[in-house]
């Protein structure tokens, strides 16, 4: 088997506050293979954005990586100096965020932002960088790219700006892109354009993607594998089809069932009672046990490790080798 491109092991991200230390990401481990799209889903507060920020070294202070390791192509990157991290960001890991305006400098033309980023990381002349910028803008679907090079971010629509951000993320040929809710701020018809674009470009450039989103539909159509986070912990990870249609973890099962679809109109939606616990009041044992219909004594007392159940793995006592469930159940149509 090939070496993973990115390997995250037992990552813990904490925020020291006056009222104690909050653990936003709590022992999360996963791998991304070269060229693979790994979806990370979860509800607000699940720790998905903090996981992405930790990998790319952009945790907002006082947030910090308290323990765990992150390896990129075999090299440990979680303890690099800010200077070394800056050289990895852009060059080896690109980023696309929800709001394109946070990634673009309003005072610079997009041509300048692209050429500067390329020349920081790659050995290119100004003319070469400009040529490459035009080619990239064309690739991401900006009409008349040569004329748009001297335009400022505000002269583009939201969808076009996100295309520019994708060009910017790709311009130094990174091996990995972290895309944090890249389509959430866009209209539905534009969302589909951007997802399709991201998918196509990453295939063509053989770039892996960590796709962070709350939209399971986008994951189902885009990702190869998916990691489901709950309360800062990994609940389940596996191939998209398995996680959507044969979920192991009761949380995943509930999450998939409660998503409305355009294909039918059930009299009621399945619902998970209650809401995600706050980071200040994380329950003992399995974080999901207060809402779990299958919880038993052990779930209250002891935090479950990730149990392998190929092709997926779930952090749930039901899937312990001596556990209650022998095989995943096909999700019944709701």
């Amino acid at each position, binding site marked *: 088997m090939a070496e993973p491109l990115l390997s995250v092991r037992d990552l813990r991200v904490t925020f020291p506050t006056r009222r104690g230390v909050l653990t936003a990401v709590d022992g999360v481990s996963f791998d991304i293979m070269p060229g693979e799209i790994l979806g990370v889903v979860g509800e607000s507060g699940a720790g998905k954005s903090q996981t992405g920020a930790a990998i790319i070294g952009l945790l907002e202070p006082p947030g910090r990586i308290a323990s765990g390791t992150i390896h990129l192509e075999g090299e440990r990157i979680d303890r690099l100096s800010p200077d070394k991290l800056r050289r990895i960001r852009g060059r080896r890991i690109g980023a696309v965020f929800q709001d394109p305006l946070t990634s673009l400098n309003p005072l610079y033309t997009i041509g300048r932002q692209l050429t500067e980023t390329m020349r920081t990381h790659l050995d290119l002349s100004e003319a070469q960088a400009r040529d490459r910028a035009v080619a990239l803008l064309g690739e991401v679907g900006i009409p008349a790219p040569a004329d748009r090079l001297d335009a400022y971010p505000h002269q583009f629509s939201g969808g076009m700006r996100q295309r520019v951000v994708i060009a910017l993320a790709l311009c130094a040929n990174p091996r990995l892109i972290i895309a944090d809710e890249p389509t959430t701020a866009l*209209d539905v018809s534009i969302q589909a354009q951007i997802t399709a674009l991201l998918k196509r470009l990453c295939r063509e450039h053989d770039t892996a993607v960590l796709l962070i989103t709350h939209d399971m539909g986008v994951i189902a159509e885009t990702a190869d594998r998916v990691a489901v986070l709950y309360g800062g912990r990994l609940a389940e990870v596996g191939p998209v089809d398995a996680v959507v249609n044969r979920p192991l973890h009761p949380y995943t099962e509930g999450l998939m069932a409660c998503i409305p679809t355009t*294909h039918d109109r059930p009299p009621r939606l399945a619902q998970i009672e209650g809401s995600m616990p706050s980071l200040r009041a994380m329950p003992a044992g399995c974080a999901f046990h207060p809402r779990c219909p299958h919880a038993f004594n052990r779930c209250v007392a002891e935090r479950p490790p990730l149990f392998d159940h190929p092709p997926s793995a779930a952090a749930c006592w039901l899937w312990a080798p001596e556990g209650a469930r022998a095989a995943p159940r096909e999700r019944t149509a709701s």
Partner: protein
Amino acid sequence: MSEEPRPGVILADDGTEVLVRLRGLTKHFDVSPPLLARLLEGKRRRVLKAVDGLDLDIARGRTTALVGESGCGKSTVARMLVTLYEPTAGDLVFEGSDIGRLRDRRALAPIRRRMQMIFQDPFASLNPRWRVGRIIAEPIRAHGLMDDAGAIRRRVSELLEHVGLRAHDADRFPHEFSGGQRQRLSIARALASSPHFLVCDEPTSALDVSVQAQILNLLRDLQRELGLTYLVITHDLAVVRFMADTIGVMYLGRLCEVAPADALFARPRHPYTRLLIETVPDLRAPDRDRKPMAGEVPSPLDPPPGCAFHTRCPWAAARCARERPALLPHGGPGAVACHAVEEGRLPAPGG
């Protein structure tokens, strides 16, 4: 609930009662540069046609939904309905009386009591300094529905329990509740004046999916128990599918298509409706090679002539760029504003 005498009940062609009837409803916003700039720099007046001639009937006891992308005017319609905006032109008839141009507070009060709005952001729509009991009792006090403090307290308890909270939550502050619970509080407040009509503007867009399911189930339960009429405004087609009986699809201030929900999803007729439904990623039936709709929504300040969708429509012809299509039945359930449908030159859906 006591029923007021309702003058002039409107019946639709199929005999259902129409609670709200919109005819040619229009809202233009003047977004011109200041007078001096117009005089000195020769800048022209600019008018944003947020809603441009909307015809729609909202049936009593049912859910009607307006869907569309940002800038299509759906929220402006909602605001006109609850009399926050005055229409530029057209009729807005609610329970038999034209309320579009009513501006007198005293005349509006009994109408406002019978219609309430639920907003998208439950963090912004609840006063953080008031206890929940006071927030929910406000419509009761404002409309003078009850005087006795004990009776009000009992009514607040009843409302809280009705939306799945507990009576003693009345003593807490909004910040002590999660997003989903706050949306329940908004619903309890909206129900306090025993309205007939609820306008829900993106009621679950700010919520997580597991909480969204709770709120959508609650809204449907309440409709069944209280016989409420809903207008749901949203961009989320899956939410619309779950909630709506009738759906209006809006694009740049106009309706492209109105149809019963089942028909709209089974056989969408307007090219925009088709592309919109085809474009939404679906968990149950993922299509990894889905083709996105081309182009972007043009600026509502400068909408294309003729059919506003012709610039993105794969079936557009010369007539579409020239002549604005009227919303007509063209033989199907509902109505559609499309020359290609009228001329029968649209291929079968999915083809």
